[in-house]
């Protein structure tokens, strides 16, 4: 049972899964990690993305990844609109802590209901030439169904990292995260910056949704399964750090895979969250947090 082959396969499966977790959490890392907006509805936007992908895949044969990228653009504007509502109703009046949280909870359920009414409650899946196929490198098997989301997730995290560190606008977002008042004194409107950042977060959630439906079937309420995971990845990696989000996702993925492989899947989630708790005890700001 404890062969090198088995170990390597468990490691690769964990890394592939972790890449996907990172993709799911990247948007939350922006909104929660950098902007202090506790967007609990983030997984619902992911499922929204899954359903948009399903629709164009089912009716027009769109590739799921392409669909995710195309829908990311209008989703950005949806995110902008959501943030404007949140800002005007809660943040502006200083009522964002509790009432803002309730707002995102409400949004979560609203999205679920819209999906139920529009698409029904059945499980939905997509088709693509790479789903169901796999390849092997030596004795290590790689399923394309998991490799494609891993790849896209990695690229997404890298692009966001470069955007945040190398562009003026990205640096402005980081600036708002560090000291909103200082940014304002430099003549930059922090609300505009936060609006754009939140929009980007929702756009990445929709892309992550297209990855989720490649991995497995979705139904409107499946987002609830991922609330804990996306927040865990964001906190484990360190709030606002894209590198941390990627590493946090990989750690959780590998932990789940190793636990499932060696000790039984029942313990997988407990071990993942145990790692999070240990990390918070030793390093409260997360692995790459400041």
């Amino acid at each position, binding site marked *: 049972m404890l062969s090198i082959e*088995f170990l390597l396969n468990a490691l690769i499966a964990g890394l592939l899964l972790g890449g996907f977790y990172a993709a799911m959490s990247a948007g939350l890392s922006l909104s929660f990690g950098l902007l202090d907006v506790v967007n609990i509805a983030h997984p619902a936007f992911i499922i929204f993305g899954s359903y948009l992908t399903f629709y164009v895949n089912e009716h027009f044969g769109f590739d799921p990844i392409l669909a995710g990228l195309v829908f990311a653009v209008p989703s950005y504007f949806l995110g902008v609109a959501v943030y404007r509502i949140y800002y005007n109703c809660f943040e502006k009046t200083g009522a964002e802590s509790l009432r803002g949280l309730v707002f995102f909870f409400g949004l979560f359920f609203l999205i679920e209901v819209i999906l139920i009414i529009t698409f029904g409650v059945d499980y939905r*899946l997509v088709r693509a030439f790479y789903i169901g196929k796999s390849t092997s490198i030596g004795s290590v098997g790689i*399923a394309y169904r998991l490799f494609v989301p891993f790849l896209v997730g990695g690229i997404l995290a890298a692009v966001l990292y470069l955007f945040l560190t190398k562009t003026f606008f990205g640096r402005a977002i980081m600036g708002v995260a560090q000291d909103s008042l200082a940014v304002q004194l430099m003549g930059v409107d922090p609300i505009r910056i936060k609006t754009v950042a939140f929009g980007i977060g929702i756009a990445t959630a929709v892309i992550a949704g297209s990855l989720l439906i490649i991995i497995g*079937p979705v139904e409107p309420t499946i987002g609830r399964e991922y609330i804990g995971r996306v927040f865990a990845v964001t906190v484990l990696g360190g709030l606002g750090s894209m590198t941390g989000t990627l590493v946090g996702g990989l750690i959780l993925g590998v932990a789940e895979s190793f636990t499932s492989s060696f000790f039984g899947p029942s313990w*997988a989630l407990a071990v993942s969250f145990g790692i999070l708790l240990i990390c918070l005890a030793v390093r409260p700001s997360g692995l790459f947090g400041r």
Partner: protein
Amino acid sequence: MGRIIKHVILGFALLLAVSIAFTPAAQAAKEVKIGFSMALTGPLGPAGKAALLAMQIWRDDVNAKGGLLGRKVKLVYYDDQTKPANVPGIYAKLLDVDKVDFIVSGYGTNLIVPALPIAMERGMVFMGLFGLDANAKFKYNNYFQIMPAGPDPIVDWSRGFFELAAKQKPRPKTIALLSADAEFARNAVAGARRNAKKFGFKIVYDKRYPFPGTTDFTPILRAVKAANPDLFYVGSYPGGSVGIVKAAHEIKLEPKLFGGGMVGLQYTAIQMNLGKLLNGITDYWFWAPEKTLKFPGIEAFLAKYQKEAPKQKLDPLGYYLPPFAYAYVQLLGNAIEATKSFDQAKIGAYIRNNTHSTVVGDVKFGKNGEWATSRTFQVQLQNIESNKMSEFSKEGKMVVVYPEEFKSGNFIYPYAKGK
């Protein structure tokens, strides 16, 4: 003048009496109200909505023939959101506020159990829809469950899988068991565990996976593969079933017999997505369009269901739950007609002591309210060539390989040969 006033008053009184007689309330009093909770949202929502449609078709069929004992049938229902905690409140409302005449259960063991004490307390007949041994602790004699699991449901559920395995030569020796960490799947695998011991198969892997909460099954199935079992029995729910089938193909997991208690493989949307990947899998089944399963009324019912289902975005073929959802109210209706009574005790005794002809075949209940003999089919998916829906409405694709009396084709063994 006095006579005129008297006539006017009389006229008004008559008018009032006539209008009261024709008010909706008076009309409603003539209806037979059947109340139930149903999972219309949440994890069991897809199946629950399909069940509701089936029950509505039965209601329309009955009402078209004049109703039950001359009274039209009305269904009164509330969404339990697949949450057992919602169920007691719903049934209390149905009985105390809506004043329903009969109650039937919602879909699934977890949602039947919370309603059973209420049915017992009120002494009401309680028809169950797909509960696995829900009456084990209550032992209520007016509970009747329509899923054909059999008198010892936990064990009977998987008996066919093991009987098939035991007949193969060379006889398989080892088995892996995997279940979702939820009541139905745990029960199904608990029964499989007992069957494994009874049939002498050595258990080499026996684990549960978190449900909900498992995104990828590859590491789990690699551990199963490392244990190298001859048989692989899985108790899973739809999302997990899809993940397990895909991961099994990706890592080339090829036990000699694979399947057992995988919920979801019976759903058309999932069948259409998995297509050829289903070939060779042997799983529990309740109905398929096979020549041996053409029970009276089933095709007429399915024609009505399949006409309406796409409009409501439900399972378009509806072979899994809908026929049984139709049958459990059909059976109650037939009992009311046969006893010519709305008396709960009389109806309960009639259901208990007779064999009932329904769209899912003849049904006879045993002492615990389960079917007197198990009729859980083992179906092997064979010759699936495409992902089209028409593929799954043909004979010869979902081949009944157990039990012998309903067998519609030959069992292909081992699994790899049927892939």
